């Protein structure tokens, strides 16, 4: 008797809760979409505590993944951080709102050079706010490989390292490696060249330990593999944990990328988004964030406060001659994107 009453009561209370959460129209929130491991979690807590704005934080793995999440339209994102070519695609599709930099006063902390970089996809610097930038290269274990060979992408096809190579699990990054090795542009849509790159990647597959994005760093620290194609910042952080590791950007050239924040058309909380961006530009926050993410930060105050040795660290802050040898990814049309996706899938399912 008592038990049934209890059950009925709890059922009622839960239905009430249910109804409550259905009707919840969150006024003071901010929905953010960002790469994995791309913000110090404490920064989010601090922002919530300081402003009372609840951050609904969501992560994705590859830019293609982000594009799908956004385009699905199932979630109204207020602020998204992603890479150059994907922002370009979204700007071209008219999905990006202009940013009012007057509401983000601390933008003055950011180095103008990076706004110049982002001109390649945001011509008039109207839409985006630079977050971090870097290159793609090979993170390797000095004791497991012949260091003299690591200046070329060729080493990723060296059978001596079969089962010890980690490749990027992202269409454009993987194709970039093959394209650069063949001496092609990483934005080629020429079918023959693409097929050639695909063939190369299929030939490489038996040597691959795994295709990874964010996990590559830990696998390298744990010495589960000899080398991995990673973003420069990932390498920078890995070096701190395991001093047998080193990083190299091959001589054939690589990809230089810049990740920026933008407000998509779906943004419902623009003011909160601006507050968040301003918060991220604040020196103490940016510095905390830099320590966690470890990519080249455009924040001059943070960079100046760093140990001079760290400022010159070529892994984190790629030197000019490396950058000059790098190419930026451009957005491709739908047809070319489909081909890239299909060819990539064929690589992944190859034996």
């Amino acid at each position, binding site marked *: 008797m008592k038990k049934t009453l209890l059950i009925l009561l709890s*059922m009622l209370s839960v239905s009430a809760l249910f109804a409550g*959460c259905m009707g919840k129209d969150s006024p003071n929130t901010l929905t953010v979409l960002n790469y994995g491991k791309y913000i110090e979690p404490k920064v989010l807590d601090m922002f919530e505590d300081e402003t009372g704005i609840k951050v609904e934080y969501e992560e994705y793995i590859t830019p293609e993944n982000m594009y799908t999440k956004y385009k699905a339209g199932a979630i109204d994102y207020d602020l998204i951080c992603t890479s150059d070519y994907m922002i370009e695609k979204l700007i071209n599709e008219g999905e990006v709102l202009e940013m009012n930099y007057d509401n983000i006063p601390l933008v003055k902390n950011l180095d103008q050079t990076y706004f110049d970089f982002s001109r390649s996809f945001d011509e008039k610097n109207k839409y985006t706010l630079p977050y971090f930038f870097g290159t793609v290269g090979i993170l390797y274990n000095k004791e497991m490989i012949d260091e003299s060979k690591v200046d070329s992408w060729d080493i990723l096809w060296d059978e001596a390292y079969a089962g010890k190579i980690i490749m990027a699990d992202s269409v454009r990054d993987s194709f970039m490696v093959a394209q650069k090795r063949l001496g092609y542009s990483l934005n080629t849509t020429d079918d023959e060249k693409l097929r050639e790159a695909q063939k190369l990647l299929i030939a490489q597959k038996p040597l691959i330990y795994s295709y990874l994005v964010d*996990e590559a760093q830990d696998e390298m620290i744990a010495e589960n593999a000899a080398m991995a194609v990673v973003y420069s910042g990932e390498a920078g952080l890995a070096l701190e944990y395991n001093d047998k590791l080193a990083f190299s950007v091959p001589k054939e050239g690589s990809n230089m990328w810049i990740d920026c924040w933008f407000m998509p058309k779906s943004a419902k909380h623009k003011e909160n988004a601006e507050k968040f961006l301003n918060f991220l530009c604040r020196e103490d926050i940016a510095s905390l964030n830099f320590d966690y993410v470890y990519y080249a930060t455009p924040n001059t105050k943070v960079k100046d406060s760093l140990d001079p040795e760290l400022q010159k660290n070529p892994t984190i802050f790629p030197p000019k001659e490396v950058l000059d040898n790098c190419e930026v990814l451009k957005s491709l049309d739908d047809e070319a994107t489909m081909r890239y996706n299909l060819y990539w899938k064929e690589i992944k399912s190859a034996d």
Partner: protein
Amino acid sequence: MRKSIERIYLFIIFLFLYLPIMVLIVLSFNNSKAKVVWGGFTLRWYRELFTNRAILEAFSTTIFVSLASALLATLLGTLAALGIDAMKKSGRAIMLGATNIPLLNADIVTGISMMLLFVRFTRLGLSTVLIAHITFNIPYVILNVLPKLKQSSRTTYEAALDLGATPLYAFYKITWPQILPGVLSGFLMAMTMSLDDFSVTYFTKGAGINTLSTMIYTEMRKGIRPEMYALSTILFLIALILLLFINFRPAARKEAQD
């Protein structure tokens, strides 16, 4: 001879089942982040676990979703079972057939089809996860309650009505006690399924909403997080204690003997 072979075999399977769990438990006290080598004893990962808002939130979301979805599914499912039980054979067959769809369908297909629906008509959030969980939970309740209803004695119920009891009173006094075990086991099964679900939640969750399964999935795709080992240890202990309690309380013993 045969006995010892049996014992050894059981022991090997036991090792297969528990070795991975033991490894997680040991690693949760290991003071070394990346490598699987012993770096000394530490409680650091437990401290970090309890200060990590994302994990704590995922934990409470999981509890809320599984409890709420199991309760609502139990309510809807029990009512449905009562209705189905009163139906003619053909109606019952159709209802049971439809009930089996989410039970037999692949998780991924259930999740995707629900996502397609939600995306078209609303926004993804916590409520969509809850609706999805209720949907795949209801069949477990129905399938647990129906057999009990079949066993329950119809004549006693009708006799009560003849003696002037209202249907509600007769139900409460006669049918309800007989189906209660079925309702409870349906509830427990629904909760278990909801706790363990990954695919359906993965496709129907909104921004910033994570159950433990989806949270661990995203964390695993980012690399090694020893807090996850600490979490495993705690979850294992919770499961152990709860199940010991449910299975070995005196009432359950009695039930099992019936």
